[in-house]
C-alpha cells in the first residue's frame, strides 16, 4: 500500500490568512483568560474549519455547514463550556446559511469566528456567498451575478447579541475583537474576519482590504439598530471594522428553566 505522508502541520498555503487568525486566536485565549479545558472548538468543512486541529482544545469538527447546530447541542448540554465556532464563509454563510439565520434568532452563547475570504479555497476557487458581483471564477465564468450575503446585516436584523468585524491583517484589532467575543456572556457572537486567500482570490488581497478597512466611528452607538444597519451594509471603498451591534435580548440559555440548577450534564450526573 502506498501511504501518503501524514502529519499534523497546518494544511494551509504559505501566506494564507488563516495563519495570523490562528496565532491571534491563541493570543486572545491567553488574554481573555479562557480555561482551555473548558474550550470546545467547533467547525465544519473547509480550510478555515481545520483550525481547531492546530491549537489546544477539545474539538468537534463536524459536517460541512453544520457547525452551528452541533455547537448549539454542545452548549445546551453543557453551557459551562466555552463553545467557539471557527469556520469559513462557504461553511457558515453558504451551506450553513439556514442554521446561521436561526442561530441569531436563538441567541445561544456560541461565539462564531468566520474566516471570510470571499472565495471557496478547498474546492479550488469558486465563488462564495460573499464574493463581490462580477468576481470571475472557473465556474462563474462571466462573473458573479448573485447579490452577496451581508452576514452582519442579517445578524443585526435577527438580534444577534454581539456583531463585529475584523481583519486578519490587523492582528491587534483582531485580538481585541476576539477577546471581547470570548468575554461576552449575553448570547450569540458573530465575528466576521476578513481574510485574504492568496491562492484563489487575486482581487480581495491584503492590500485591497488594508486600503478599505476603517474602524467604526468613535461616536457609533452599537445599541443603535439603524446606525448598526448602516455600517453593516457599508461595503466597497470603505469597510467598517469593530463592534457594529449589541442587542439586549436575553440569551437562549438564560431563558431555560432546566438550566437554572446547573448544566444538563451535571444534572444528569447528579441523578445517577
Amino acid at each position, binding site marked *: 500500500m502506498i501511504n501518503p505522508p501524514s502529519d499534523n502541520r497546518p494544511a494551509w498555503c504559505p501566506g494564507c490568512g488563516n495563519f495570523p487568525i490562528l496565532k491571534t486566536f491563541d493570543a486572545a485565549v491567553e488574554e481573555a483568560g479562557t480555561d482551555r479545558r473548558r474550550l470546545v472548538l467547533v467547525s465544519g468543512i473547509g480550510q478555515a474549519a481545520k483550525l481547531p486541529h492546530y491549537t489546544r482544545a477539545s*474539538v468537534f469538527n463536524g*459536517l460541512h455547514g453544520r457547525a452551528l447546530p452541533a455547537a448549539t*447541542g*454542545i452548549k445546551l448540554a453543557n453551557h459551562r*463550556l466555552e463553545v467557539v465556532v471557527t469556520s469559513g464563509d462557504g461553511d457558515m454563510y453558504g451551506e450553513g446559511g439556514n442554521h446561521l439565520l*436561526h442561530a441569531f434568532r436563538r441567541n445561544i452563547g456560541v461565539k462564531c469566528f468566520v474566516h471570510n475570504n470571499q472565495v471557496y479555497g478547498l474546492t479550488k476557487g469558486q465563488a462564495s456567498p460573499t464574493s463581490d458581483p462580477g468576481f470571475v471564477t472557473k465556474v462563474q465564468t462571466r462573473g458573479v451575478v448573485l447579490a452577496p450575503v451581508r452576514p452582519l446585516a442579517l445578524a443585526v436584523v435577527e438580534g444577534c447579541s454581539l456583531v463585529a468585524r475584523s481583519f486578519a491583517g490587523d492582528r491587534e484589532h483582531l485580538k481585541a475583537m476576539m477577546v471581547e467575543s470570548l468575554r461576552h456572556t449575553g448570547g450569540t457572537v458573530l465575528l466576521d474576519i476578513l481574510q485574504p486567500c492568496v491562492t484563489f482570490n487575486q482581487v480581495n488581497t491584503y492590500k485591497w482590504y488594508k486600503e478599505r478597512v476603517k474602524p467604526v466611528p468613535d461616536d457609533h452607538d452599537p445599541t443603535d439598530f439603524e446606525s448598526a444597519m448602516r455600517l453593516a451594509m457599508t461595503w466597497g471603498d470603505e469597510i467598517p471594522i469593530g463592534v457594529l451591534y449589541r442587542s439586549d435580548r436575553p440569551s437562549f440559555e438564560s431563558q431555560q428553566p432546566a438550566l437554572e440548577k446547573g448544566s444538563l450534564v451535571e444534572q*444528569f450526573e447528579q441523578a445517577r
Partner: protein
Amino acid sequence: MDLLIRIAGEAGQGVQTTGNLLVSAFAEMGLHVFAIKSYMSRIRGGLNWFDVRIGDAPLYAGREPADVLVALTDEALETLRPYVADAGAVLFDADPEEEDTEAPAGCLCIPLTAIAKETGGSAVMANAVAAGAVFALLGYDLSALTDYFATAFEKKGEETVQANTACAEAGADRLGEEAAGSVEAPEPGDEAVTISTGTEAVGLAAATAGVKVATAYPMTPATGILTYLAGAAEAYGLVVEQAEDEVAAVNMVCGATYAGVPALTMTSGGGFALMVEGLSLAGILELPVVIVLAQRPGPATGLPTRTAQQDLLFALHAGHGEFPRAVFAPGTPEQAYRLTRRALETAHRYQTPVLLMTDQYLADLVMDTPRLDERLRPIDRHVVADAGEDYVRYAVTDDGVSPRALPGGEARVVLDSDVHTEDGHITEDLEAHVRLQDKRMRKLAGLTADALAPERYGPADAARLLLCWGSTWGPCREAVDALNAGGASAAMLHFAQVWPLEADAVRRAVGLEGEEAEAPEAITVVEANQTGQFRQVLAEAGVPMECESLTRYDGLPFTAADIVKRIQT
C-alpha cells in the same frame, strides 16, 4: 366478547376528544381497550374517525366492521354506514333546524350539538352528549362516565364537571328507553385497566432514561413525541428545542451527546432523509445518537397521516460510508417503552447510532399497557471520568469500543468527521484509516451478540408461521388466534429488533435449525410495504428462506381478518 364503536366527523368536530373520553372511561371501568384513529392531513373538514374497541379480554388490533357508528356529518354516515355490522346501531347528529327533513332510516337521531349548546352552554360539549348516548346504548351505568368527568375535568373546575355531566345525562335521556341497552356490550372488569399510546410510551421512556436534550422539526407522525417531552420537560429537567430543520435537529443531538447527555431526535421518512448525513456523522464520530423514525407512506410527502413500514431498507442502509448501527421496531406501547430505553443504552454501550422505527399506527394507537415506570432512572453512559492530558478519543480496542471521555475536564476530546487518527485529528494516513474503520466495524460483533431474538406466539409445532416486525405484532397475534380457532395450526414470530440479526438465533426460532428442528410448512412475512422489505433483510442477514409475502401498502393498518382472509384464499 368485544365491540367496536366508531366516531366519525370532520376534523375539528371533536371526534378525537369523544374517542379519548370513551377510551379513558372504559379503561377506568375495567374494560380492555384498543383504539386507533384514522385522520386526514388537514385542520378542519374532511372525514376523520376514531375506533374504540372494547372487550372482556385483551385486544391487540383494530377491525373493519363497527357495532356502533356515531356519525357527526352526512359524509360520515354515507361513507361509513356500509361498515356497520348487521346488528349494529348508528347514532346520527341530527340538525334540529332541518327537523322536517326525514331522518336517515334506521338511525338513532340525536341533536348532539344542539343539546350541548342548550344543556352545557357550548357546542364543545357535544362530545359529552355523544358519550352519554353511547353509554346508554351499551347499557352501561352512566355514573362510570360521570365519575371519570370528575377526575378528568378536576382542574377545569366544578362547573365544567357539572356541565359535562348534565350533557352526558341529556344524551342518555334523549336516546330513549327503547334503544337503551339495545347493543350487547362486554362486562366491565373489577379493576381499572392501564393504557398507553405508542407515542406516550416512547416519550416517557426517553424522559425516564435521562434524555436531557430532545430536538426535532415537527413532522407527522413523530411530532407527538416532541409534544410529550415538552410537557415532561419540567418534571424531568430536559430541554426540548424545535430545530430549524431536520439537518439541524440531528446535528444538535450529535453535539449534545458529545458534551455528555443522552439526547434524541424524531422524524418521519422525509425528515429522516435529511438526517442521513448526520447519521453518517454519528457513525464516524462514534456518538450515541438515537433517532426515532415514525413511518408513514411515501415516496416524498406521501400520505402524512397514514401508516406504513416502507422505510426499513432505507433505515438499514441510510448514510454514506460503512458504520455499525442497531435498529429496533417495537410492536406495542409496552415494547416501545422498553426498546426506547434499550435503544439509548445500546447507543451508549457501543457509541454508535441507533434507530427506533415506529409508524403512524403504533404512534397513535391506544391499548392495554402495564403501568409504565415513571421514575427517572438514568442510563449508563459508559464514560470514563479520570481521563488525563494523554487521553485519545479513538483508542483501538478488541471490541471496537474506545474509552469515552467528555469535554470539560483534563482530557481534550477531539472528534473529526474526516478520517482521523486515534487522537481524533484529521489525517490522510491510509493505514490509520483502515485501522479505525476496522475498529468501528468490530462493534457489529457485539451488537449482533446482544441482538434481541424474535419472540414466538402460538404452538411450537405450528404448520404455518407468520413473520412480522414492528407494529404488525397485534394484527398478526389476533390472526394467529383466529386461524387456530378455525382449526388451522399457526404461530407467529415477531422481530422487535430488525438489525443486526443473529442468523443462528433466527434459524432456530423459525425451526430451520436446532435439535428438534421442524420447519413450518409455510412461512408468511406480513409487512406494510409493497416489496417485502423484511424478507430481503432476512436474506441479507444470512437467513434466506422459502416464504411468501403478505403485504399491505394502502396506508391503513392490517387487521386480523385481513390477514386470515388472504392466507386462506
